[in-house]
Structure formats: C-alpha cells, structure tokens
C-alpha cells in the first residue's frame, strides 16, 4: 500500500521542530509500524537525508520504549504498543501523522524520541521494596491471597511507556503512578514502605511538572497494557491514608 506520512522532525531539544511530509510506496500490511519507519529511513539514507530518530528496544511489546502518537492516538489505533501495531490496521492511501509524546516533563531529544527519565525519577522515590540481597526466600514463605495477587499482577503489567501521560489532556502521569502504588501496595512485601512510597512518588510526580488528574479517562483507553482506571482511586486512597498517618 501507499501512504502519506506527516512526521515531526526536530534536530534537538533546543531547536523548534515541524511536520515533514513523506510519501512511502509498497508498504506491506504484515510490517509492523516500526518496520515501516525502518523502510522509510532506508530510503532517506539512500537519498543522503538524515533518517528519522525514533525509539525502540524489544519490539515485542514489553519494554515500553517505542511510544509514538499516531493520528492523535498514543500507540495508534489498536490496544498494543507501537512495535506490535501492524500496517494492516491502516488502509492504502491513508495519511498518517506521527508525533512524539507531548509533555513538558518528557523533553524531545530528537525527532520522535523523548526523554522519559521523569518516570524513572518517580520510581526512584519509592517504586520498589527494600530487601536484603542473598539467597531468594522460599516462594511460599509469604502467603498472598489470590485476589490480591491477581490485582498486583494486573497493575504490574505497566511497562512505563508513558502513553497515559501522552493521552491525558492534563498531561498527568496518574495512571502510571496508580499502577505502581497498586502493584506494590497489594502485596505483603510492599507494606513496610507503603505510606512513604505514595507521598514521595506523588511529590516527585508533581515536581516533574506532570499535570493533575481530573479523572477524564483517556489514559486507560490509550494504555497498551489495559491498566484500569481504579488504580487511580487506590492511589488517592493510599495518599489520604498516608497523610492521616502524618507522613
């Protein structure tokens, strides 16, 4: 198939960017979206033009590197990551606009690549449990009720891709935060640091310049891992509990 691609080009974080238009012929519908961009880059290389910078790593939907805004939808029209999106989701003759995640907390590095370090700094403020290294404890040493285990597992599916931020009209990372808080807060191992975790992570979130959540719900619809909106309720509940405990 033949496509018109309108792609955001920006030399570096300091210079302004703009949309460039490219025509691409003979795109196979079995290609992934990233393979399609690889083909375009080969053409640009052959012509001696600067290839388009975009991020990817695993290309199997688990690392969270590959986020792109495709026709106004984070990761494009399917419920999956950009690397797992295939060109059969598009039609011959389509015009596709590709932009980087837009959030001041995610500065553009080049073209479609943004720096998602803000999410790492949030994790560093408590998105972990403190344990001693050494031999792993027995798997059955700490019993976990099945419903809690399931819930923690669902939330743990978050890959930190940032699509929720990209899709949120407020530019908030609350779905990401809620996923981490729920994941660790549902498990016995997460209890010791439960209060300080939520207070510090929310503090870092606000410090990074993410917006405030007004429960609009675009995040869940964009999330490739289908993290449900109620993790944000859990986040709010835990935050109020921590403040009540005087943290």
């Amino acid at each position, binding site marked *: 198939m033949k496509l018109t691609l309108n792609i*955001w080009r920006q030399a570096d974080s300091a210079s302004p960017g703009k949309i460039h238009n490219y025509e691409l012929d003979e795109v196979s519908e079995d290609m992934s979206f990233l393979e399609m961009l690889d083909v375009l880059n080969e053409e640009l290389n052959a012509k001696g033009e600067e290839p388009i910078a975009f991020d990817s790593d695993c290309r199997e939907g688990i690392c969270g590197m590959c986020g792109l805004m495709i026709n106004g939808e984070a990761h494009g029209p399917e419920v999956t990551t950009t690397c797992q999106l295939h060109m059969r989701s598009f039609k011959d003759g389509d015009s596709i606009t590709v932009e980087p995640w837009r959030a001041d907390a995610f500065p553009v590095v080049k073209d479609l690549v943004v720096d998602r370090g803000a999410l790492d700094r949030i994790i560093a403020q408590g998105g972990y449990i403190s344990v001693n290294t050494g031999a792993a404890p027995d798997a059955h040493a700490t019993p976990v009720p099945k419903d809690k285990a399931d819930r923690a597992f669902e939330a743990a599916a978050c890959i930190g891709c940032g699509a929720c931020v990209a899709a949120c009209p*407020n530019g908030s990372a609350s779905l990401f935060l809620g996923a981490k808080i729920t994941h660790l807060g549902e498990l016995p191992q997460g209890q010791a640091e439960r209060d300080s975790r939520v207070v510090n992570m929310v503090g870092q979130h606000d410090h990074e310049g993410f917006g405030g959540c007004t429960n609009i719900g675009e995040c869940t619809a964009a999330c490739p891992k289908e993290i449900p909106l109620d993790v944000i309720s859990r986040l709010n509940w835990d*935050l*109020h509990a921590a403040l009540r405990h005087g943290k």
Partner: protein
Amino acid sequence: MLMAVSGVLFIGFVLAHMYGNLKAFGGHDSFNEYAYHLRVIGEPLLPHEGFLWLFRIGLLAAIIVHVGCAVALWRRAGKARTVKYVVTKNKASSVSSRTMRWGGLTILVFIIWHLLNFTIVKVNPNTGDTGSAAGDPYNLLVDTFDVWWMTVIYLVALVALGMHLHHGIWSSAQTLGLTNNDRARRNAKAIGAILAIVVAGGFSLVPIFVLAGVITK
C-alpha cells in the same frame, strides 16, 4: 481532595435547593412559607437569618476553595503540555469530563446572575421593579419565568450544571478513593448520571411550568 469535598457540599446544596423550589408547585403560600422558614431556623438560639448566613458563608468558602482548586489544576495542565499536538483524538472521555472548566465557569457566571435576580438586588424583569418592590419570593419567581429569555438562560445553566455533575460526582468518588474496582466505578458513574438528570430535570420543572402557564400568581 479539597475540590472533591467542596463539590460534594454543592451536591447537598443543590438537592436541598431543588426541594425548596419544587414547593412552588404547592402555590404561593407554601413557597413563601418555606422562604420565611429558612430565615428563622434556629431562632431564638440563632439571630434572625442566622442559620441562613452560616449556610451562605459555608457555601461561599466552598466556592472559593473549589474555584481555587480549579484554577490550580487548569494552570498545571497548561504548564504540563506547552507544545500542543497537531492531531488529537478523544477515545474514551465524555463531553462532560472535557467541559468541566468552561462548564464550571458558565455555572459561576450564572450563580452571580441568579443571586442578582433573586437575592441581592432582586430584579423583576417583568415589571422592572427592584428590591422589595419586586414582590414577595413567589411572585418574583413567577414574574421572572414568565419572561421567556429568563427561562432560556436558566435552562442553559441547568444543562451546564447537569453535565458538571455527570462527571463531577463520579470524579469526586474516585478522588476520595472510593472506586477501587470495576463495579464501584460503574456504580459511581451511574449515580453521577442519575443525579445529574434528577437535579437538572428537577430544577427545570418550575421555570418550564411557569412559562407554560401552569404555575401562576
């Protein structure tokens, strides 16, 4: 959180206010008696209009908190994304959720208009009289809604209020941490939708029935 608590206060207020308005169906005396009663609750423990003033101060404080939070959220959102998308698409959000800010402002402007109309200045748009000459509460109400464009303004404001409640009610449940699973979320959304229709519909009855000539002096 302050936003949610002040919002929930408003929900209580609009329900009570709606109940009062529906007394207009009971006729002239029933409505005026209610308006009078509001002014003497708590007497002689409280001075005349004492309860009413406590209530007014509480509501005013809640409005200040609510608008203050709204402004803070609006500014944070503005700063969180200074470079806009070329293409955007709404996949899942309701119109109500995306119009909280402009809808809220509409309600604020309306509240000021409404107070000028019925409480502070008391403008009777039919006779042009103001103050106590505008008539007792019931007559002022009937005269006001006999003017078609006044009824239209009120109905527009009520649509805005209904939409604000549609999203606001479930949103406050979420903000207070009460919707920790699918079912709780669905219930909160359903309650939001039902209360929005009850409030907007309930308030609309009086102006519509006045204009239609069912409620008369």
